[in-house]
């Protein structure tokens, strides 16, 4: 059974219908952390976060404190919040921006104070209509409340936050593409080196790019101390994490659970969370960390929800999205639909991703619709190998950004785990699930 002793860190206001308002936020301890932080030295704030060992919640899981420490010293630097959550079945930031925008903004101000950055851009997915409205309202309210603007809360620290809606491209979730888009350019990921925006980022200046959930953790960390956060979870995976649970579960939704102390099985089956598989069917496979992650079979359900634990088994916790597939799920169709997403969202810059995603999508479409050939399976694996040589995870790359090697994950997983399902499609001349 799930371990439920951990406090709710980022979803503590879930019970309130007006959780997004300033009044509710203030009534539930809002902006106290910021006032505390402003009494501290910026480096002490940063050191609390470092001590919390807060791993970035955007997908790559890079420690936030270390990212901050890499910020090149310069007269001008920026903080950018990545809220371009656009991957299918990933919706935990969606929850945070709609349900607790002030928590995000408070986290942002704390981070900016720690970094001594005075200009912040919050880049939100353009399709988050309600989220954009609420975050903008929260920003406006925060200005009025004195938490944003010049000399906040009477301190010597001044800060401006601009909310910037994305224009509908998944690729802008890649931090360098996001920066290009913020600069008003086409959202092409930048080639590395330079490897880190912390050295050369927005407008060529040092820039920290952090995820919405990462920022939302900061008020709690300041209120309770980095050590308290680090005491939760296990190993490198400290604290709690929001998971977006989707697919064939009885109660899909966003759940905050303590890391490592809980397993995939806990999250899927516990009545407080997923509540089990629909019609109590058997799990065929799960996607453990968003559709770019390689799949797991049911034998790995008891794996703890920890970054390194999942990485050891060749996948990732990634964007915090867990998709459950049972015997009623057509894995060929699932892989095809995921590929279709990547094909449509490839920025078009690198040849293997641009052409590979389209080619694989078309071949997968044929297979799903009963027009596949046996040789397509090896062809697909070879094409996947040409995008991500060796088909390992973390991947080797032939492209500028990781969208490229994200394409093969589902196809490679589906073919290697469920080759018979593909053969059934080919032999039957149609999808057996139709």
């Amino acid at each position, binding site marked *: 059974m799930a371990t439920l002793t951990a406090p709710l860190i980022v979803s503590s206001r879930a019970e309130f219908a007006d959780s997004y308002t300033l009044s509710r936020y203030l009534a539930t301890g809002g902006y106290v952390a910021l006032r505390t932080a402003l009494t501290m030295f910026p480096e002490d704030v940063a050191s609390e976060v470092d001590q919390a060992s807060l791993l970035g919640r955007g997908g790559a899981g890079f420690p936030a404190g270390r990212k901050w420490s890499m910020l090149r010293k310069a007269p001008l630097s920026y903080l950018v919040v990545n809220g371009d959550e656009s991957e299918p079945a990933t919706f935990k930031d969606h929850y945070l921006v709609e349900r607790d925008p002030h928590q995000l903004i408070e986290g942002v101000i704390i981070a900016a104070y720690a970094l001594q950055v005075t200009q912040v851009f919050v880049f939100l997915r353009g399709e988050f209509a309600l989220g954009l409205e609420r975050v903008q309202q929260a920003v406006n309210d925060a200005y009025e409340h004195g938490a944003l603007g010049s000399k906040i809360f009477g301190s010597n620290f001044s800060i401006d936050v601009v909310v910037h809606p994305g224009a509908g491209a998944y690729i802008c979730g890649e931090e360098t593409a996001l920066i290009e888009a913020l600069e008003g350019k086409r959202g092409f990921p930048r*080639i590395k080196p330079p490897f880190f925006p912390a050295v050369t980022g927005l407008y060529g200046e040092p820039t920290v790019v952090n995820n919405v959930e990462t920022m939302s953790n900061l008020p709690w960390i300041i209120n309770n101390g980095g050590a308290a956060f680090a005491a939760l979870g296990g190993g490198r995976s400290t604290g709690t994490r929001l998971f977006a649970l989707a697919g064939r579960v009885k109660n899909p939704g966003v759940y905050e659970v303590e890391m490592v102390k809980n397993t995939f099985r806990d999250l899927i089956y516990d009545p407080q969370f997923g509540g089990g598989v629909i019609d109590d069917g058997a799990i065929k496979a799960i996607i453990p960390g968003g559709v770019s992650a390689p799949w797991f079979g049911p034998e790995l359900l008891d794996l703890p929800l920890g970054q390194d634990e999942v990485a050891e088994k060749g996948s990732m916790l990634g964007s915090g999205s867990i998709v459950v597939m049972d015997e009623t799920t057509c894995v060929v169709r699932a892989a095809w639909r995921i590929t279709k997403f990547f094909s449509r969202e490839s920025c078009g810059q690198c040849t293997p991703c641009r052409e590979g995603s389209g080619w694989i999508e078309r071949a997968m479409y044929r297979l799903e619709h009963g027009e596949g050939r046996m040789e397509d399976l090896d062809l697909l694996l070879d094409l996947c190998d040409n995008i991500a040589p060796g088909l390992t995870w973390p991947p080797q790359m032939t492209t500028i950004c990781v969208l490229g090697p994200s394409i093969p994950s589902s196809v490679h997983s589906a073919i290697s785990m469920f080759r018979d399902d593909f053969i059934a499609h080919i032999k039957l001349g149609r999808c057996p699930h139709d």
Partner: protein
Amino acid sequence: MTDLTRTTVSITVNGRTVEANPGELLIEAAERSGNYIPRFCYHPRMDPVGNCRMCLVEVEGPRGATLQPACFLKVNDGMNVTTDSEKVKKAQDGVLEFLLANHPLDCPVCDKGGECPLQDQSLAHGSGETRFVEEKRHWVKPVEIGELILLDRERCIQCSRCTRFAADVAGDAQIAFASRGDRIEVATSPNQPFDSVFSGNTVQICPVGALTAKPYRFSARPWDLDQVESTCTTCAVQCRVAVQSSGNHLTRVLGIDSEPVNHGWLCDKGRFTIDSIDGNEASTDLLHASTRITEPMIRRNGVLTSVSWGEALAEAARLLRDASNTPQGVGAIGGAALTNEGAFAWERFLRGVLGTENIDAQYGDGLDAALLQSLPKATINEAANAPTVITLTGDLREELPILFLRLRESAVRYHRSIVELAFGPSALRSVTRVSLPVRPGEAHLVARALTSTGAVDKGVEINEVDLAEARRLIGESGEGVVVVVGRPNVAESAQVVETALRYLAEQLPQAKFLPALRRSNVMGALDMGLSPQLRPGRGFDELAEGRDAQAQLAALRTGEQKAVLLLGGCLLGNVIDVTGACESLENADVVVVTGHGGATLAYANVVLPAVVQHERVGTVTNIEGRVTSVAPKIVAPGSAWPDLAIAAELAEQFGQNLGLHSVEQTAKTIEATTGYPTLSALNDETSDGYVAGRGDERSPRRPLDPMAFPGIRSIEIVGLGATAGAVDVSDVVTAKAPRSAPLGSVKAGRGVDVPLADAYSLRVVLSRRLYDNGIAVQGSPALHNLKAVTTLRLNHFDLDRLGVSTGDVVNVIGERGSTRLPVALDDGVPRGALDVAFGSLNEDGEDVIRPIIDHDRVITQLRLETT
């Protein structure tokens, strides 16, 4: 241990140690060591972006060997690279296969077929069969994205060379990617065609047949083309080019990567106006530039009639002899389009045979040749590398496009400073550090303000912050200042800029100067002595007195000078006072030596047909004094002769022998007597030439990379035909350069008498456009639709003051007449001035602006009135 004396780094490529320059790109270092790495998006003259992924190689790193793009990676000491492993081969083959997945199999009907990097690559390394069984991507093909360029999106491999060239190199971001994934496409914005004057470069660097040029499209197959390396003489930058023909028909001009000059780029005028040479076979109107002059002619009963060379030469000699019998009775105008050898031959004929000093290669639209000669010269590279460049020119993109590209790169890519004296609209403005608006008649005052520390002359409006910044940049640059100087406004007396130039030369004794005269081989013609007081090889005779072009035209009008030899048929297209020039020619005996028709022929008594660009051998000299060779690619039509032969034969009519029997021997004579490197350049056809006065300085040629320059295979050595025996350069190096002109004192030009500003009038800036009404554009069907239409461009202050806006037609009233013209907003024009294009025609095809220019005043003022 680090060896501090080392200037190179060592890397290992496929197990072998290779020395590389620090900061060099891996793809370049590997190529030099004999390991060619395939590529599509990489171009040596643009910043790498690493997006085609073709150049993936294995590089050892902390996490083992990983695939990295060689075009983007800079070498560092100890780097260990593998370019030939199975893993590399699989990755590269994979990329190639991906590129071909959606690439149409239309090579048999594709212009690029036969010179296509993708085709070559596929043939060399590709799989024979496709594994792609789906329907390929389809687009409407081709689409016209500009007047000269067609785009076939099915063939496009999204290497972004064209979009990067347009945005980064040319600064005309009119093409860019739209959409994404495998539906990504190169596109223009709605209602904004790709009308960059550099558009043809995108076709040249396209690694597939996605971009094609309308003039060349379907005109030949690459394997039918024959080519020579030569120099483009469409303007005075003189880019190195490969000239290609199919049979005796010019088909294409491609830019060669000349390190000191054009870096592989060309402007569309140089690239596409070859059709003015042999693209108008049906044209017979002798008064139009599209007509080639193919036979000698004499005016009989008022009509130009074809005659034999013998008759024509005899008649020409008779007219010139009669005129030269009276003192100062004869002279010559023109010659800027000649080769150096042709110019030298005419100089020998004019001074040696006719004994006249009335010689001028300019049409009164340039600058004092002796003054230019006296200035310390900068090369184009020196200007592009200077920490601060001062420009006193018109819009360089319109006047000398490739010089514009070089200076733009210097500012944008290398962050060097440009201080611009802005006479009118200028494409360089957006990248300058300081742009000081200069009204007509005030350049010398602004120049004085720039180089002094005191107060600015009264009546001159200069932004103090800008002036301080300009002074700071100039002061900081010390020896590094290069002044680029041309003739920004032909409606303003040359004295104004010349006086400004003298100030700058006096006040900045360490500055170097780059003349920005526009026309063809004008620098070569001046260096060969086609100007009063000048002598071949940059000599100067201060005692000599002769008439320049304007003085000759005046003397012809009064009858003081009886005859004129016109070297080129475009006098009337180029003088400011066109009415006065017609009167002068009407009065005179006129001998015209020309390859093209033109309005001037209406006044010709004798016409001698000459060969033109791409039909002749010889050398030419560009703005920086660089002497390069030109080679013939086609045979001239009819019985046109090289100028050298015409001059020599005409001298024979006077019973004199110029002693010039061949181009090679003439080049030798020049070099032997003056040290001017004509023979050296002529004997070195596949080089970037020699800068006159700079000894043996030569820049290394980069090896021709077919991926960077598709279409140029290799450049063959051109035979010169019969020569006058063996030519030895050994005896020419000892020749001493002749005495050159001393720097004129500023005092001589101090009295520029500019009339007071008239509150009701605007001062005229008569500026140049690339697509003017000159021979090349007038005779080019390809550029026909791009010619400038006469429009008055005004600052918004002046438009508001007049209560008019873009498109309104106003009455234009001057002392010499009036006309009606449309106005347009352009804040590049200084307040109180109006800009109008020289040589442009109004909607009725008439040149209405030149006749109302006050050519004998320092500036022209015009009043605009609404009806």
